[in-house]
């Protein structure tokens, strides 16, 4: 009993987890559940990859130069987001806004390249209604694009909140969650460019 009591008081010395830890942890759980949702879309795409219904397949449709640019934009955007989190940790407003602006521009460039690709496919009669393969493609890649769009809006919100409220503890927690979100989207993109684009193009 005494030992248990001592153990209890000892763990109290380090204290309950801070709000930053459990807010971040809760958001980490959300991100992992988001990955589980994406895994269902990946599974659907992998199963339907050959179901082109006589229509064009990935080999004819995909332009890897475009994909390489998209990948570069998102990777550099993830790096800039890391710089923003360091700036936030050292409470540097100027560097924070600079890094977040770079993150935004690169993320928006990614989104622009993706929309250009989607518009081109739709114009060539290879829209989501053409075949099960294209439905799965647009669902998976479009869902990632929607996440990026939401992330860009969140990014602007965080910049505005830092201007309006400064590096308050709650704002810093939101910045932590945003960086988790943005890095996670880059991880999902790694799976997309490998499974969706490169696998389809293997000679």
């Amino acid at each position, binding site marked *: 009993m005494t030992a248990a009591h001592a153990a209890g008081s000892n763990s109290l010395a380090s204290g309950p987890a801070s709000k930053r830890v459990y807010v*971040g942890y809760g958001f980490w759980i959300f991100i992992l559940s988001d990955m589980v949702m994406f895994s269902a879309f990946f599974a659907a795409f992998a199963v339907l990859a050959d179901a082109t219904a006589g229509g064009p397949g990935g080999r004819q449709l995909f332009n890897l130069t475009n994909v390489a640019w998209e990948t570069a934009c998102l990777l550099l955007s993830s790096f800039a987001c890391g710089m923003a989190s360091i700036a936030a940790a050292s409470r540097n407003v100027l560097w924070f806004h600079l890094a977040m602006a770079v993150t935004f521009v690169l993320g928006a460039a990614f989104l622009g390249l993706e929309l250009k690709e989607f518009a081109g496919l739709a114009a060539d009669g290879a829209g989501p209604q053409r075949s099960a393969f294209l439905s799965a493609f647009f669902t998976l890649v479009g869902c990632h694009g929607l996440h990026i769009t939401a992330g860009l809006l969140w990014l602007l919100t965080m910049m505005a909140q830092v201007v309006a409220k400064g590096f308050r503890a709650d704002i810093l927690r939101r910045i932590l969650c945003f960086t988790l979100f943005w890095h996670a989207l880059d991880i999902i993109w790694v799976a997309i460019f490998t499974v969706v684009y490169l696998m389809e193009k293997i000679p």
Partner: protein
Amino acid sequence: MSAVHDTPATGAGIDLAPGEERLDGSGVAQGVRGYLIGLVLAAVLTAASFYFCFSGLIYGPAIPAALVALAAAQMGVHLVFFLHLTTGPDNTNNALALAFGVLIVTLVIGGSLWIMAHLNHNMAPMSQLMDMQR
């Protein structure tokens, strides 16, 4: 029981939020260095993926496996250098949650591919099934 007391009081046992890094000394320079290493490794692995897809250096049927291995490695680089995930005691919860996520993702993707491959293999062609319905 006494094992509980082994955690030093220096704070090494206190949990870290996911994505957070414990920096000692020159925080900013050390932090930037970590992200730079991650960026270079990720860029190299991405370039390798695009290169090996067409280079002919890899035996044809093995290219998918090589691409999956490179992607897994790059995801690991992102987790370590961008999300600062470690196996240290301050990251136990974060790493265990990730492990569970990876388990579910593996079951969903692997299970779907496995089942659907066997379905395609064992089922009569759709035209015959349609005839049976008549």
